[in-house]
């Protein structure tokens, strides 16, 4: 499991490789909070290489999104497979996040 952090213009892009679950959610949270602390405000979390997410992983995305919005920024999500989309739909979190079909689409108009 790893989080790859890259930059696309003024957007910080985080790739989630593997699972985003209770055992590693704090690592993602700290990675993004460190970026917020250093002044970053635009974030795209890409799930191209993600297996599954549990409720803790969803929870950390919710809390990060709220924190970033409070700082005047935005957290977007991209490239969720059908299983992951199902999770967001079941929990109605698809109403809370802007979810792009691809990384490129997610970066548009940021």
């Amino acid at each position, binding site marked *: *499991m790893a989080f790859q952090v890259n930059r696309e213009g003024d957007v910080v892009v985080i790739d989630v490789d593997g*699972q985003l*679950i*209770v*055992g590693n959610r704090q690592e993602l949270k700290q990675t993004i909070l460190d970026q917020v602390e250093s002044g970053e405000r635009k974030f795209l979390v890409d799930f191209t290489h993600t*297996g*599954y*997410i*549990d*409720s*803790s992983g*969803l*929870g*950390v995305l*919710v*809390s990060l999104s*709220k924190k970033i919005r409070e700082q005047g920024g935005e957290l977007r999500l991209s490239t969720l497979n*059908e*299983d992951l989309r*199902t*999770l967001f739909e*079941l*929990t*109605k*979190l698809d*109403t*809370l996040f802007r979810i792009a079909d691809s990384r490129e689409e997610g970066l548009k108009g940021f």
Partner: protein
Amino acid sequence: MDRELVFELPNDLQCIEEAVEFVVGRCATCEETGRKLRFNFRVSFTEALANAMIYGNGRDPSKRVRVEVALRGSALKARVIDQGHGFDRATVPDPTAPENIECPGGRGIFLMRKLMDEVYFNERGNAVTLILRLPETEPIRREASA
């Protein structure tokens, strides 16, 4: 082929991913690995183990979590038992309600109920049983099932 697995885990969240993959791997050798096993079971079993460790055992590293898995025909049954005092399920709010949508927690039991065919707790509330019926010939490729 029927199969049973019984094991205990230390109360350590870092053990969850490996335990989930172990069970999925053992069950996948007996039945067609489909979406329900790969996704529904993985997420739900992760939730059950996390709830047991965090809420049931209160993150106490001296406690353990017992797991009993039985695959009989196409029915997969997993029971997760913690050493806690249980909880009142009536107090768990709906995480999809507008007032709860931005809460970071509270989606675990909801997801288990949505993703598994059956979920039930013992009276004390320290053991949850997950039941998933795996289609006998569920295709692995999603587009093949469309």
